[in-house]
């Protein structure tokens, strides 16, 4: 018997999204618990899916019981089961966090906010779980539309940033659709597994080459891969805290997932490696992304914008791992999908909490913050160390595999980029940490000055998610070997 969990994990948030409207109409306060219930159920379903995949192998779920390639099929293998768990868990954590932040930032929009929030999550999950090219497009649009709306309701510059995002996002989605069309014209199929079988005979066809190019550009726009990242910094800076915390970890990672899926399970790896030098180009773009993101981040005075540029650089790591096109590199890339989700989650949650308490996020305004919000800042430090790549945080281990992959591939330039980027991140984060922790102007005459500034920690509903994310960073670091041996090594395409 096929388990129902793959479809449940998408449908549950969908149904609950519909439910938030009538219930929210009746009692505004019900939206938050409804969202939590929906996402918890979805998370449980994703856990069940992952468990099933680990124990019995790939799940094929035929929607409406129409056999593929005629009907739509959900294919859940180790790769997307892994990403599903990440997506549903991160969104659950953000949902827990959202309560106070939304009440403060968007008091009159609560009902619609949670509805769109759930749709966003449903869209992301739908992208990840599907095995059909066109179905992916539909859910991509659900996620994108929800994303545009959520970003547009942020602070002053938000609608304009969101409009830019909409333009680029639509170009990306249209290119993707065009790619689907080209593949359809040359094969007659929309099913990924079916395409995987048919395509090798057509690798010389110019239609397929162009389709591939459109896929890469389209997905590159969605995952904000340098130099297609232009929409990202503005959008994630001006979006409401909760939304940044939801989209920054997930949207780009889901994009990265789609890229891996298309490159290695719709097309065959040798197509991207030998027939056309996609992976090489991707590697260099990624190297550019890593350096560009870090350097631009250095130029920022706004903490949230700095994080947005760091995100650009982090996306580069994933792309670099894919571009290395060997087992270690891909392991690193997939591991980084997990690690970076949690790092970005923690960082954006922390910024949201700081905003909530002080309304400030200029780096120079962070003074004394370690006394007012000790736990939040501790979480920030741990996340920062993880981005830098200090063991035993999880960021170190993805770097480990990426460097391993780069050495295996004898790509010394990439090794250098990875190492240098660590150092740039040190400068980036210690600049912030110095501001928050050290107080050079002050006279330290009395030991009693510690008590002068009272603790004003974020409310518990925000603090707990932050601590969960931070704990995740530490735990995934220590458990990385375990995660790789149970999931990721099967998620890497077999021919590597």
């Amino acid at each position: 018997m096929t388990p129902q969990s793959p479809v449940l994990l998408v449908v549950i948030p969908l149904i609950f999204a519909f439910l938030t409207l009538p219930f929210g109409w009746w009692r505004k306060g019900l939206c938050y618990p409804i969202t939590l219930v929906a996402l918890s159920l979805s998370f449980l379903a994703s856990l069940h899916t992952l468990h099933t995949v680990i124990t019995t192998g790939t799940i094929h779920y035929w929607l409406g019981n129409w056999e593929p390639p005629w009907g739509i099929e959900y294919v859940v293998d180790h790769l997307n089961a892994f990403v599903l768990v990440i997506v549903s868990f991160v969104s659950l954590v953000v949902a827990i966090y959202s309560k106070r932040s939304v009440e403060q930032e968007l008091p009159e929009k609560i009902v619609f906010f949670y509805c769109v929030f759930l749709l966003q999550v449903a869209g992301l999950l739908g992208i990840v779980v599907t095995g059909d090219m066109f179905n992916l497009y539909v859910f991509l649009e659900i996620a994108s539309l929800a994303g545009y709306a959520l970003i547009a309701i942020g602070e002053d510059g938000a609608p304009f940033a969101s409009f830019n995002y909409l333009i680029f996002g639509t170009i990306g989605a249209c290119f993707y659709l065009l790619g689907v069309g080209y593949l359809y014209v040359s094969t007659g199929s929309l099913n990924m597994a079916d395409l995987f079988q048919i395509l090798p005979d057509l690798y010389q066809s110019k239609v397929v080459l162009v389709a591939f190019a459109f896929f890469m550009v389209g997905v590159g726009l969605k995952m904000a891969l340098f130099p297609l990242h232009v929409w990202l910094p503005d959008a994630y800076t001006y979006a409401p805290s909760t939304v940044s915390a939801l989209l920054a970890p997930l949207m780009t990672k889901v994009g990265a997932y789609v890229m891996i899926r298309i490159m290695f399970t719709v097309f065959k790896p040798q197509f991207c490696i030998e027939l056309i030098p996609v992976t090489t180009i991707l590697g260099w773009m990624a190297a550019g992304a890593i350096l560009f993101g870090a350097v631009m981040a250095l130029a920022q005075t706004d903490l949230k914008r700095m994080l947005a540029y760091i995100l650009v650089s982090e996306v580069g790591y994933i792309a670099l791992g894919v571009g290395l096109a060997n087992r270690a590199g891909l392991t690193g890339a997939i591991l980084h999908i997990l690690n970076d989700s949690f790092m970005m989650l923690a960082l954006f949650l922390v910024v949201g909490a700081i905003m909530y308490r002080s309304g400030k996020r200029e780096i120079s305004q962070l003074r004394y913050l370690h006394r007012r919000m000790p736990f939040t800042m501790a979480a920030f430090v741990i996340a920062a160390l993880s981005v830098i790549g200090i063991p035993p945080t999880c960021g170190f281990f993805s770097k480990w595999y990426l460097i391993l992959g780069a050495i295996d591939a004898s790509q010394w330039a990439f090794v250098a980029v990875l190492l240098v980027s660590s150092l740039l991140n040190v400068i980036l984060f210690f600049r912030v940490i110095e501001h928050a922790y050290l107080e050079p102007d002050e006279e330290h005459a009395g030991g009693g000055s510690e008590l002068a500034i009272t603790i004003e920690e974020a409310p518990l509903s925000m603090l707990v998610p932050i601590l969960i994310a931070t704990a995740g960073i530490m735990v995934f670091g220590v458990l990385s070997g375990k995660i790789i041996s149970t999931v990721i090594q099967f998620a890497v395409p077999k021919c590597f």
Partner: protein
Amino acid sequence: METIESIRPLLAVLVTLIGALLIVFTGERHRNLREFWTILVSVLKFVIVISMVPFVLEGRVLEYTIITLTQGVSLQFRVDQFGLFFGVLASALWIATSIYSIGYVRGLNEHAQTRYFFNFALCLSATMGIAFAGNLLTLFIFYEILTVSTYPLVAHKETEDAIMGGRKYLAYTLIAGVVILFAIIFIYTLTGTLDFKPGGFLLGRGQSTTLIFLFALLILGFGVKAALMPMHEWLPTAMVAPTPVSALLHAVAVVKAGVFGCLRIILYVFGPELLHNLDLWLILAYFAAFTVIVSGMYALAQDNLKRRLAFSTINNLAIIVMGAALLTPGAITGSIFHMGSHGFMKITLFFVAGAIYVKTHKENISELDGLGRQMPLTMGAFTIGAMGVAGTPPICGFISKWYLAMGCLEAKQVIFLLVLLISALMDVAYFFPIIYNSFFKIPKEAINPHLDEAPAMMVVPLVITAVISLILGIFPNAFFHFFNLASTAAAKILGGM
């Protein structure tokens, strides 16, 4: 070699980690309780560490694997003689340092004391992890934790100088970290394993140019913390830190971790045979000898007491590396033992510098005239420490230098013997004036002629470490067969040859 599964090394690491958490949650409001945790944990840790001595002396190895990190490499502790030697040294000196610290921070009414003790505990936890690490990756993980947890200690004063010192420290050590990481991953791609093995595991792997390159990277990387010249720049700058931190940095945790890393690389990764084949040992020895001489000259030129001590540290660390590079039984024994003896002696010297600062707020050597009359115990301890560093019998520095000298002869390299002698002369040259002036010179300005020592919390530890230096000089095997640990480690490494 018999291997025993034992959780003790993990406990030794964890106990300080838990201690650190207890310190944070106790906080500023309950100072005495917080300090109680510090001392309790340091004593507990010491007990755990010495409980491993009997096993290791019998030639057994205690091992504990926590979790697999990546294929063929685990987060693993393995306690052998060399690691245990370092572990005993660090945990013993931590007790002294924590008592001393309490006296120091209370004497000066320092700010952010909780952070200070927290990071101190974290540092020690990391140091213990380094000592007991069973493979390069585990070592590296704790090495980086040590780097990060030391940063707040260096920048503790939060003055412009302190922040710059902190930045410099981070820049040097993290760049080094990156270099080491690269080399480690490279070794992993060559061999698929990173487990330490007495006598090395790289023999016969990879091309000689690659290996030379890797060796250079690793020595440069670990050499930063070990303050080998020209990567020493951060160390004198880091002297802005509170004195107990300097004591910890210089005698125990950071620089010794660097030297420990170097020795692990030389003796347990590359191994004597490979280094002989590649002729790297001689180059390394010359490199270290260069540092020995130059740092000695620098030390002569310093007026700030702590900076002079800093350069003296650089000098002694280079001697340790030089000894290890000679790869003879005597030299290795001497260099391992010198890690310990230098630890006890140098911590005494720093304790003295701190005690002087707390009592008189003086930092410069030229101001110390006649201080011996005011603080005889303190300056007496200083005399023992200083003479020990110079290698005067019967203080423990003599024994290590004796073995090092023997090692030079065994390796038939008289030039290094000369270097040793010159450095001993320089030690005398930069320490003797201090001792003489403080006891016999009549001060320019009136100084308190009465006995007026620093707080007991500070004097007691420094006297104890001085006395231990003396005892170790007379009975090198006193306290848990200290010397035996060093000599058996050396024997085991060379057993493979």
